[in-house]
C-alpha cells in the first residue's frame, strides 16, 4: 500500500482520571490524501475531538499512531494548525497581532519583516477581515472572531488544517456564510482538512468524505461515507439535489437509527467488534456505502 499523506493507524487512547481508567478511543484507522476534506461526525462525547487532538499532537495516543507525510506526529506544531470552537484569539492582541504572533513564529527565518506584514494582510483579506486589523477580538462579532481564527491558521501554511467544530457557536446565517468562505478558500488553496462537526448539512456540503463515529466509551469509526457531489457546490442548488438529500439521509440514519445516544449496549458491542474485525463487513456496511479505508 502506498504511503498516504496523513495516516492514522490503530489509534486508541485511555485516559487516567484519579486512578480510574477510561478508554475513549479504540482502533481508529483513517487515511487522507493531500487536498482532501474529511469531516468527523458523531454524537457529543464520542471522542471526535480526541481524534483531532491526537492528530494535532496535543494528546498522545496510548496505542497506534499518526504519520504525516511519512513522519510520525509526536508534538503539536504549526504544520497541523487547529481552529478551536471558541476562536481562541488572544484577547489582548489586535486582530493583526493575533495573526502576526503565528506568522512571526513560523516565518521568522524565511520571510523578511515586510514580507511577513504582507502575508498577514493577505491572509486577513482571504477571510474578508482586513477592515478590522486594529480591533481587539472583544470588539468584533463571534463570526468575525472565527474568521480571524481561520486566518491565523491559514497563515501558518499548515499541511493539515484541523477544525474543531469551528462554526458550532455561531448563528445559522453566519455559519452559512463562513461555510461558503471556507469552501472557496479550500478550493483555491487545496488545503487538506479534517473538520469536526455536529451539523449533518455542513458535513455533506463541505466534505469529500464523512467519517461517522460510534458512541463512546471505546469509540471508533463506524462508517465512512464518500461524498461524490461535484464542486463547486452551491447550497441552494444542493438543497433539492437528490444525491445530496440521499447522502444526508444516510448520515442521519447512522446517527439516529443505529447509534442513538440512548440505545442499548448491544448495538455498541456490535459496533466495537465490527471495528476490531474491520476486514469483515459489519452490519452498517451492508446499508451504507463504505469506502473501505478502514481495512488495515
Amino acid at each position: 500500500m502506498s504511503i498516504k499523506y496523513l495516516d492514522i493507524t490503530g489509534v486508541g487512547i485511555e485516559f487516567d482520571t484519579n486512578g480510574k481508567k477510561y478508554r475513549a478511543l479504540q482502533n481508529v484507522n483513517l487515511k487522507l490524501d493531500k487536498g482532501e476534506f474529511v469531516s468527523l461526525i458523531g454524537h457529543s462525547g464520542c471522542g471526535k475531538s480526541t481524534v483531532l487532538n491526537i492528530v494535532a499532537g496535543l494528546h498522545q495516543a496510548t496505542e497506534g499512531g499518526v504519520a504525516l507525510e511519512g513522519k510520525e506526529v509526536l508534538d503539536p506544531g504549526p504544520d497541523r494548525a487547529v481552529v478551536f470552537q471558541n476562536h481562541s484569539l488572544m484577547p489582548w492582541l489586535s486582530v493583526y497581532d493575533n495573526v502576526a504572533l503565528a506568522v512571526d513564529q513560523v516565518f521568522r527565518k524565511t520571510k523578511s519583516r515586510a514580507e511577513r506584514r504582507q502575508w498577514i494582510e493577505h491572509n486577513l483579506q482571504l477571510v474578508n477581515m482586513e477592515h478590522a486589523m486594529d480591533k481587539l477580538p472583544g470588539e468584533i462579532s463571534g463570526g468575525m472572531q472565527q474568521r480571524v481564527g481561520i486566518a491565523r491558521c491559514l497563515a501558518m501554511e499548515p499541511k493539515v488544517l484541523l477544525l474543531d467544530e469551528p462554526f458550532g457557536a455561531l448563528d445559522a446565517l453566519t455559519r452559512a456564510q463562513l461555510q461558503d468562505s471556507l469552501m472557496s478558500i479550500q478550493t483555491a488553496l487545496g488545503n487538506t482538512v479534517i473538520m469536526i462537526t455536529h451539523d449533518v448539512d455542513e458535513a455533506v456540503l463541505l466534505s469529500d468524505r464523512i467519517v461517522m463515529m460510534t458512541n463512546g466509551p471505546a469509540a471508533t469509526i463506524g462508517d465512512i461515507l464518500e461524498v461524490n457531489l461535484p464542486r463547486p457546490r452551491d447550497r441552494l442548488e444542493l438543497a433539492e439535489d437528490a444525491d445530496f438529500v440521499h447522502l444526508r439521509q444516510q448520515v442521519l440514519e447512522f446517527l439516529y437509527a443505529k447509534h442513538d445516544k440512548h440505545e442499548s449496549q448491544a448495538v455498541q458491542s456490535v459496533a466495537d467488534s465490527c471495528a476490531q474485525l474491520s476486514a469483515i463487513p459489519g452490519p452498517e456496511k451492508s446499508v451504507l456505502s463504505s469506502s473501505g479505508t478502514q481495512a488495515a
Partner: protein
Amino acid sequence: MTDTAVTLPPQQRFAQMAAFLRPSQWVPLLLVPCLGIIVFILFWQFSASRIETSLGQFPGPVQVWEQLQNLGAEHFRERDKEVAFYQRQEKRNAEKLSADPQAAVKLRNYTGKPTFIDQIFTSLVTVAAGFVLANMIAIPLGVLCGLSTGVYKAFNPIIQIFKPVSPLAWLPLVTMVVSATYSVEDPLFQKAFLNSAITVALCCLWPTLINTTVGVASIDKDLVNVSRVMALSPLVHVRKIVLPAAIPMIFTGLRLSLATGWMVLIAAEMLAQNPGLGKFVWDEFQNGSSNSLGRIMVAVLVIGVIGFMLDKMMLTLQKRVSWDKQAVLR
C-alpha cells in the same frame, strides 16, 4: 465602551469636558461622600471632647489641624536651619583657606532631627524598596508555580507555612542577620533601612506569589493549546500569553501586598525604632507632651491617606496595563 472619549473628534471631546465642569455634573457626585465626611468630623468632635487622658483631652479635628500646620512649619524651620548651617560652614572654611591655603578644612553633615515630612519620605522609600524586592522574587516564582505543577507542589508547603507568619516575628532575625552580614565601610544603605525593607518584603511576597500562581494556572486551556500548536518557545509563551493573561490576578496580588506592606512597615518602624512614620508615632508617644496625641492623630490620618493613594496609584497602573478595558476595577 470606555474608549469613546478617545475616538470622538476634538470639539466634541472639549464639549464633553466642559459639560463635566458644570456644577450640576459634579455636585451630586461629591455630595454624598462630603456628607459622610462631615458626619464623621462631627462625631469625632463630639466624642473627643468627652475623652480625658493623662496627656490631656483627646484631640478633636481643630487641634489636629493645628498640629498639622505646626508639623509643616517645623519642617520648613528645620530646612532653613540646615541651609544656614551649610552657609556658615562654607563661610568659615572660606575664611580659613584665605588665611592659610594649607589649612585642613572639615566638611560636616548637618545632623538635625528628621521632621515629620522627612519621616514620610523615609517610609515611602522603605516601603517601595521592600515592595520591589518582594515582587522581583514573587512574580517570576509565581509564574513558575503556575506553569508547572511540580514546582507548585515543591513550593506549596513552604508558602503555606510562612504565609501566616507575621513579618514582625521575623524582625529580630532580620535585624541580627543584617547586622552580622552587612558590614561595609561606607554603606550605601543604612542597616535600619535594610531591616525595615526586608521585613516589608517578607510580607509583600505572599499575596503576589499566590495570586500570580492562580492567575497563571487558570489561563484558558485553549489559549495554551494555541500556543502549543504555534510551537512558541517558553520565553515567548510567557511574554505573549502567560503574563498578559495573568495581569489582572498579578495586580490583585500587588495591591494586596502593597497594602499589607504599608501596614507592616509602620509597625516595624515602631518596634525596631527604624526611621519612618512608625518611629515618629512612637517618639511622640514617649515624648508625652500635651500636643503628642494631636501629632499622633495627624500621623494616623497621613498614614491612611498615603495608603489610599498607594492603592489608587496601583489601580491606575492596572487600568493602564490591563487589556480588558471593560473590566470593572475597584
